[in-house]
Structures are given as C-alpha cells and as structure tokens.
C-alpha cells in the first residue's frame, strides 16, 4: 500500500469524527495504523516471530475549558460514535483550565519523506536471515562469550494522522527498522551481559555485524569486575551512559515539569546551569532522526529548540498547553507527545542531544589519566531525581589508569548531584551516538570531574 493511500484512509475516519463537533465544542481526533514485525533468533533458529497490525483512535473533546479523552481500538462506526460520546462525558468531570486549547493549524515542517519504498522490497526470509546472522555473529566471537540472551530484528511502519475542529489535518507514514542483541560473557563463575544495536530506515541499511561486535565488546569490557576502592575521581561516561543521563535531564526540561514544580531547572532560564562546553539541543526536524516528524502529536510543526547554550539555560520544551499557560512569552516548540492513541498529549523531547566536541574518546581518556570509565548505569530511575537533582546510581565499567582502560569494576555506585555534574563537565567527546531510548537520545563520551565512586 502506498503512504498516501494509508494516510487518506486514516484521515477519512478522523474527518468523520471532527465533522460531528458541536457548537461550542472542540474535537481533535488522533489515529494510528501500524504494522510491526519482530523476529527473535536463538540457538540458530527463529525462536519467535510476531506480526502485528494495530489500529486505534484517541479523541479529545474541549468544552468550557475542560478536556475529556477517550480511545478505542475498534474502528467501527458504532464504536467511534460511542468513543466520541465517552470523551464528551469525560470532559464534564475534569477541571477547567484557561490554558486548555486545541492548537491552530500551521504549515508542517518539511522533513522530507519518512517512508521508503525500499522498506516493502525486503522479504520475510531476508529479515529472518538478518536475525539469525546477528545471533550467529555474537556466538562466533567465542572465548568468554558464552551465549546470547536475545537477538532480534524488528520493523515498524506506521501511519499517524490528526484532525481537529480548528482545521488541523495531517497524516504521515514513517518506517523504521532495528537490530538489537544482548551478549553474555562468562569468566570465573561471573557473568556479564551487554547489548549492541543499530537502527535504520530500511533493513538493507542495518549494520548487523557492527551491532554484534558492539555487544561482544561491551560484554567483555566489564567481565571479571571487582568492587573498587571508594574515591573521588573523574568519571568518563560512555555514549550509552550519557544518553541515559540525558533522558533524566529531559524530564526536568519540559515546561510541564517546570510549571508543576517538578524540575530542578525551574526559574533558571538565562543562568549558567552547566559547563561552558555544554550545548543541548532538541531537534524534531533532524534529518534521519529517530523521532523526526513534520508535526508533533497535536499537529504542531516540529522545531529545533536550543535548551542549553554554552552552559546557559535557554528555555524548556512545550506543547500547546504549557505554552498557553506561560501566556504570551512562549509558543509550542512542537514537543507534544503521546504514548500511542490511548493517551492524551504530554510533553517529551524528540531528538535530544549534546553538540559533540572535538576530541575522540581515546584522547579524552588520555587527558583524564586516572579515573573511572562508566559503561552502564543501573537504577537510574530511582537514583537520579529530576525534581531534587540527587544522583546516586549503580555502575559497572573500567578503571582508567595512566590514560588507558585498566581493570573492570562492578557493584559500585557513583554519586553527586545533577547540577554539580553539569557544571563539572570537563570534556565532551566527538563520538555522537544516537540511541532509541524514549524517542532519540544522542549520547557521546563525557568527562565529569569530582564524582564519588563508592565500592567496598
């Protein structure tokens, strides 16, 4: 099926709902029609193949400054009509808020086509072969690599549409593919695991061997780890770890968190919150980005938002509600985000990343001399608090001695505060790496001075 055909079919359903809007009522209909395939390989065979087609519509009704939301996976006329009625009923029980608005239509950002005709050219047999090759490539590494926890190929082609009584009407189709593998390494009775992955628009462009090599390298790197001595030393975050920290910061950089008193960055616009070498950008328009779209989940054009520039906080991420709540000072940055058709829009980053520096990771390690190279963060969601700024998480990784990687470390923690970490950034690597964590997060090697590594 063509992108246009899928989009028109979905828009037809959404139009039908919007047409039923009553006088004095705003109606917004969001729909998705998605096909997904996952293939898991294990022990040289296809362990599981899962094929899915998901359709659903979420309806937002606005009346008297109150929003109500209802959704359905049943797209029959009867179910859609009942869902619209449910959204109306739900709107009658919520609290009014003058900032509750349905956005006005604006021209979408030109991000080119997110669909690719080559997607449909790939046969199921080719996809199965990719998953098998991924698993075999890890097993072939041999030595301390004892197995594969999981090896998967996945793809997704989704048409997303939105229409509203303010005149928004848009639909677009996007395809994505990925491979991800988790390698198991074992030595002296201790086991470590680590994953490697690659993403691409179409399966033809996936680097299967690269993903396998990444998992192997990362699993072996921390094998045989011991508890370190407790010390206050520079910590070098690898791109995966940095991306995870960005994910925590993202939660504090939404205007929703700021307005509700749940952000350590509230009231800090214009202030230096990080080292001068830090520039943080959210860019929903990024060519080839994992979360790139012409418009956000409310139909507002996506944009490039400078959040931190040279260490100075420049602003927050907005959807139309948070922008309206700020009054005339803000407009939506195109960061409305939903967890599918079952939820009303919140605020979330799109493609969030630090601007890369100039030094490759090896040069950063050489400069650090003695420190700790952190490969994996554990317990981040409880240990890194975007409200209080407290940061205390479990880690594994490798000690850095004389500028090179030395003995591996496990069962350790690093602690500090997020503000101190941002201000303590001593170097930013050139190795920008995009990871599909909660949208797209761009991590890179990051050196942070003066953190406490605690072991025995």
């Amino acid at each position, binding site marked *: 099926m063509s992108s246009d055909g899928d989009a028109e079919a979905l828009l037809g359903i959404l139009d039908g709902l919007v047409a039923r809007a009553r006088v004095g009522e705003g109606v917004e209909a969001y729909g998705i029609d998605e096909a997904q395939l996952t293939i898991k390989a294990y022990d040289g065979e296809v362990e599981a193949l*899962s094929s899915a087609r998901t359709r659903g519509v979420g309806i937002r009704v606005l009346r008297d400054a109150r929003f109500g939301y209802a959704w359905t996976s049943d797209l029959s006329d009867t179910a859609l009509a009942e869902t619209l009625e449910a959204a109306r009923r739900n709107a009658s029980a919520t609290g009014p808020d003058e900032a509750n608005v349905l956005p006005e239509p604006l021209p979408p950002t030109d991000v080119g086509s997110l669909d690719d005709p080559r997607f449909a050219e790939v046969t199921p047999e080719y996809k199965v072969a990719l998953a098998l090759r991924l698993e075999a490539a890890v097993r072939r590494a041999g030595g301390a690599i004892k197995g594969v*926890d999981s090896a998967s190929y996945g793809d997704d082609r989704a048409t997303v549409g939105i229409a509203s009584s303010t005149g928004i009407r848009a639909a677009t189709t996007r395809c994505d593919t990925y491979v991800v593998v988790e390698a198991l390494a074992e030595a002296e009775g201790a086991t470590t695991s680590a994953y490697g992955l690659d993403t691409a628009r179409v399966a033809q462009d996936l680097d299967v061997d690269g993903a396998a090599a990444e998992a192997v390298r990362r699993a072996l790197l921390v094998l045989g780890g011991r508890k370190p001595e407790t010390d206050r030393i520079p910590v070098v975050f690898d791109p995966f770890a940095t991306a995870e920290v960005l994910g925590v910061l993202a939660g504090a950089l939404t205007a929703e968190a700021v307005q509700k008193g749940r952000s350590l960055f509230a009231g800090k616009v214009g202030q230096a919150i990080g080292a001068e070498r830090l520039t943080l950008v959210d860019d929903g328009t990024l060519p080839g980005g994992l979360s790139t779209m012409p418009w956000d989940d409310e139909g507002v054009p996506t944009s490039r938002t400078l959040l931190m520039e040279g260490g100075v906080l420049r602003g927050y991420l907005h959807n139309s509600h948070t922008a309206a709540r700020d009054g005339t000072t803000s407009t939506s940055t195109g960061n409305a985000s939903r967890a599918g058709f*079952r939820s009303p829009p919140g605020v979330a980053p799109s493609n969030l990343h630090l601007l890369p520096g100039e030094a490759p990771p090896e040069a950063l390690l050489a400069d650090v001399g003695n420190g700790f190279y952190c490969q994996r963060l554990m317990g981040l969601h409880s240990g890194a608090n975007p409200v209080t700024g407290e940061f205390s998480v479990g880690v594994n990784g490798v000690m850095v001695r004389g500028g090179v990687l030395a003995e591996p470390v496990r069962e350790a923690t690093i602690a500090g505060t997020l503000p101190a970490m941002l201000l303590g950034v001593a170097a930013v690597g050139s190795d920008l790496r995009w990871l599909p964590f909660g949208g797209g997060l761009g991590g890179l090697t990051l050196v942070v001075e003066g953190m406490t590594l605690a072991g025995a």
Partner: protein
Amino acid sequence: MLDDEIVRAVLARALDSGAEFAEIYAEQRDGRSVRLDDGRVEDLVSGRDVGAGIRVLRGQQTAYAFTNLLTLEALLEAAGVAAAGLPGSRMATVADLRTVTPERQHLAARDPREADGPALAEVVRRAEDAARSVDAAVRQVTVLWADSAQDVFITNSEGHRSTERRVRTRLVAQVVAARDGLIQTGMDAPGAAVGLELLDAHPPQDVGRRAAERAVAMLDSVPAPAGELTVVLAPGGGGVLFHEACGHGMEADIVAKGASVYGGRQGEAIGSELVSGVDDATLPGSWGSMGLDDEGTPAQRTVLFDRGVCTDYMSDRLRAAKLAIPRSGNARRQSYAHLPIPRMTNSFILPGESDPAEIVRSVKRGLYCDDLGGGQVDPASGDFVFGVSMAHMIEDGELTSLVRGANLVGDGPTVLARIDAVGTDFDQRQGVCGKDGQGVPAALGNPTLRISRITVGGTA
C-alpha cells in the same frame, strides 16, 4: 467471546502448515483513569481495547499474529500469518473443545463502573485535600485512579476453552514537599484485583495523607552514609529487592537461556536457611492474582526457595517443556498484542520467627529501609541497585534520623545468603513489573528482614 465454529476454523487455519499447537487469546478490556495534578482534575481517560492473538508453536519455535478485529475474516487472516511463520506440512488437528473453569475467581464485589466520572473526580480530590492538609510544605500533589475490567477468552488446539473476568483498581498519590530549598517526594499506591471496595480498605484521604506524611518527614532527613552496613528492610518495603534480584532469575525463560544465577540450582542452597520465597497467584483479590494464567493453566502457589534451598521455577508452556518441569501457571501477557512469557504474580518472602522490634534492637549501627524505590538488576550476574526512598539510621538499636539518597548495591545470591533474621510480620506493595517491553501488575511483599552486610551507596 468467540463461537466454537469460529474457533475451530481459526485454529484449523493456524495449524495449516507446520505447527504442533495453536492458540487463540482474545480479550476485551475497558480501562479508565482519572488524574489530578496541580490542583485540578486534568485528565479523565477511558477506552476499550478489543483484539485477539493467534499463537502457533513447534518445539521451542513460536509464531504470533494479532488483530484488532474479532471477525472470522480478520482472525483467519491473522491465523494465516502466524501459520506462515512455521512453514511445513500439517502436524496436528484441533481436539474437541471443553470448557475449563477457574477453581478460584477473583470477582469484584462492586463493579468500578458503578462510579461515574464525577464520582471518581471526587475520590482523587479527597486524596488531594488530605495530602495538602498535612503540612504547608506540601507543594505538589498528583493523584491517579485507574480501573480496568478485562474479559479473557483462551482456547487452543488441545481442546482448552476458558473465560475469565479480571477487574483491577488502584489509587496512587504522589506528593512533592519542599522546605528551605530541599525537595522530597512521597508516595502511596494501593491496588488490588477488586472493584470499588478498594476504597473501603484504602480510603482516599488515608492514601493522600500517607504520601504527604512521607514526603514531609523526609524534609528532616540527612544525606545517607556510604559503605558497608547492616540493613534492616521494613515489612513490604523490601519486597521489590527480592522481586528484582531473585524473582526474575527464577523465571524459567531466563533460566532456560542460561542467563540466570539461579539456573540449574534446584535442590541446592541458594540462601540463608531462614528465608523462604513463594509466588502465589491464588491469594484472594491480591493485585497479581488470577484464576487462570494467560495460557489457561490454573494459577498456583509456587515455592521458589524453601528454607534457603532452590525449589521450583516459574514457568509457562514453552519453558516448562524446555526445562522438563511442570507448568506453574505463570504465563502472563500485557495484552493480546504480546506473547505470553513467565512472570511473577504475587511474589513474597514468607514471615519467620524473630520479633521485628528485637531485630532493630540487635543492630548497633545500620540502615532501616522503610521503603525501597525502583531498582534495576542484571539477571546474568544477579547484580542489583535499588534506590531507598525512605530510610532511618539505626544507632544502638534505635531508629534515629531519617536519611535520603541511599541506594543498595549488591547481588541476589549474596543478599539471600546474608539474611540473618526474619520477622514474624508481613506487608506487601503493588507495582507494575516490566519485562521484554510488557507491563503486568505484580505484588511484592516481605517481613522485617536483617541483612548482615550490604553496600550502601550514599551521598554524605
């Protein structure tokens, strides 16, 4: 939910090529949530999910397809897609269908739908009012009510046919308190496989007040110490540690892949002889309870370790076959869009024989963990990290100052081995457990437990 005629046709189509076994899992789920935030009922969301997943198996191989439509045509198409995933010639036929009735059903006394939107808005407002009245330091209150009524229909080519209705309700209050630049959070989140009667056991004002009292109390906390300490886990507050660090490693899929430290250890001591752990899906109305699992196997009580000795793993059809162990009734899935995998239901450390007060008195210097926050574990090594959301110092056998920012670092086997006192008390908590991208309701629980030594990562 589906007529026998449709079932037979769809299962036959699913067995068209090389599958040994075919199954239909169909469900209808009505979900509703009411969220109060920032002083106002912000969202009232309701929805209905309908769909069916067709699964075919051959040996350890699985193919799966699902659809939103429960028409014969859509189901046959999905069955065809699944069948194509296991190419070959016909190996099995559809047996005569017979109805299996769950021995225990967890029925809601009061259907959540008896409360309309405005009534639920009142519930979350009452929780908020109670939270705000605790102290002027309360800055933000979020309250969430969620209910779901799920009708499950399972049938398979071996002739199984069953239906079950599962109702769950939950009330969650989260409070942010601030004073002199220090910000702290508190939470209370009861849930159960019951209807509106949840609110009789947990009145909204109590839920709001408890969350606020925790947040406000933590404003008087001091930064946690770092280093190895004796740790006492409060009843209920430590259950998540065993869920993550032991429970997941005793799920048969992880065992079967050689990715668990507890694999191949049946009959061996894996912990202190004071400690026994079970997974029990039969507890009446408990958050993780069910009558049948998501493959139709009756829910059970499974002993995971008995006085320190590894006994049984939690299994589903596939992994039970692979490990040659019985099916334990632990196959669960988030929805028809997901494959069943072995999961915990209500996983508890059982009470022992020590007086809880005496356990605290026995500690010269240590950390008393009232509540753990989230955690993460690497099942391969058993290594874990848990945030401690609320804790007290223990000094000379007395609880003294509250401490914040602590986390516990260790590994499952070592912690199980170092439990040297088990209290007679017990409490549980409810959560949503995530694994392989699927979230399912799971309860966790424990008595007062003393761990002789564990690494505490602190900020002091």
